[in-house]
């Protein structure tokens, strides 16, 4: 069984991680953070002062967002190997990936467009910035369901040798729970649940990074052990 293709797709994820680190060191904008309490004039000043850094990050994130899709695609293919009674969880998973990654990219565009012409009316810059944060938060709902669908598919795996080890299901449920606080950013302008807060931002970004890293190794192992041809049940 030749699984080289799947392994190539998987290795795009560490490349995305490397690009993220590169962005982090090239454009130190990551450390400066916008607060929801800033006035339009302060926001305009921020985009004016950090314009080139934000644009650099925007370009990188634009690429990174797309580079995560192959990892999710391999996950979906391995999910379809489980063989529940129907591909219903796999379909849900694929749809969630489409919606979540698009919203993530749109968030990136909002920040990029704000930085592209920082002399714009501060009201519009604030709008773009808020919109970016809203869209950055919206994918919480889809990645939540993505993880739950994968977890349920694993729990219902009745094969003698399950495709995914059982702990991967627990892990997916746990990460799904950690994404939940992110949705409450809309209600708070300060504190841990504000969009720059420890629960809504730091915890969410770290959870996501850890999730991608763990799933990369899990999938590498599963693909390596796969002996039958993929019977795509989609």
């Amino acid at each position: 069984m030749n699984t080289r293709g799947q392994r190539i797709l998987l290795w795009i994820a560490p490349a995305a991680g490397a690009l993220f680190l590169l962005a982090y060191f090239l454009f130190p904008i990551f450390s400066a953070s916008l607060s929801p309490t800033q006035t339009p004039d302060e926001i305009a000043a921020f985009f004016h002062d950090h314009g080139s850094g934000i644009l650099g990050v925007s370009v990188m994130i634009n690429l990174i967002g797309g580079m995560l899709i192959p990892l999710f695609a391999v996950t979906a293919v391995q999910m379809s190997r489980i063989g529940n009674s129907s591909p219903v969880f796999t379909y849900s998973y694929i749809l969630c990936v489409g919606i979540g990654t698009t919203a993530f990219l749109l968030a990136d565009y909002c920040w990029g467009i704000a930085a592209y012409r920082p002399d714009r009316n501060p009201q519009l810059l604030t709008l773009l910035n808020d919109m970016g944060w809203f869209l950055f938060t919206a994918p919480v709902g889809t990645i939540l369901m993505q993880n739950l669908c994968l977890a349920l598919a694993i729990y219902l795996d009745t094969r003698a040798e399950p495709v995914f080890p059982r702990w991967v299901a627990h892990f997916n449920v746990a990460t799904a729970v950690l994404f939940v606080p992110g949705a409450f950013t809309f209600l708070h302008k300060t504190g841990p649940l504000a969009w720059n807060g420890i629960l809504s931002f730091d915890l969410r970004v770290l959870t996501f990074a850890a999730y991608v890293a763990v799933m990369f190794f899990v999938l590498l192992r599963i693909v390596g052990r796969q002996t039958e041809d993929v019977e795509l049940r989609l």
Partner: protein
Amino acid sequence: MSVPAGSFASAAGVPVRPWYRSRKLDQWICFWSVPFFYNLFGLVFVPLSSMMPPKSPSASTQQIVGFFQGDHLLIACVILTLSLGLAPVSNAVYLTQIKRMSVSPAFRVAFLGGTVMGAIVGMTFPLFCFGLGAFRPGYDPAVLVMLYDFGYLAFIGSLGCFCVTWAMFGLAIILDRNRILPKWLGYYTVWQFMSELMAAPIWLTQSQPFGWNGVMTFWFAMLVYVPWQFIIYVWIYKAIKRQPEDELDNAPSRTRVRQRDTAGAAP
């Protein structure tokens, strides 16, 4: 095949499993998430945030600013953000039935593409437009009016993406020879498609009866849509129930074949 403990035989001698051991449990979980999702959606849109039924497109600027200052818009956005993923699950339920039909896989790929589009423009956009206005009520009123228009037009005026999904679904039912869903339901779905076309004038006018809260656009579409949604799910329920056990991807006969293949391919 041995009868698993805890199950009992039906009159026909076929073992009847309790619901939690049903082979179709994946389909049932997704199926029952749908009424939960629609009820939640209904509660969020109608009583909680009063986004629906739609406010008037010709509302004054003051009324629009007042709408964004309503208390519960942001809570509605939190609930919508968290439940965003249930929309894909409800669409996966349709996809699963389309897969059983004797039509080209192109139908379900097109359906899949249309629903991704629909969830972004028809659900995520209105969510963030209304949420943004409520999050920062200090925006210039002109910005709030734009968000109001963007939110309602994206929500009610998303036409093409739903046209493609309902066209694929309706056509698949009509062309299907496996009789997964009754043929009349396919023709009924064509009406659902028509209701999307009927909503097109909302982009052109701000007043009754063709505005986005119009009798001919919003309410007529609702009249077609609500019963259709109920009926379609009753028939999907029946279709899942009727699906023979040996047709399932996890049927014992199929799993055995799969395991033999695995053994044969192993080094």
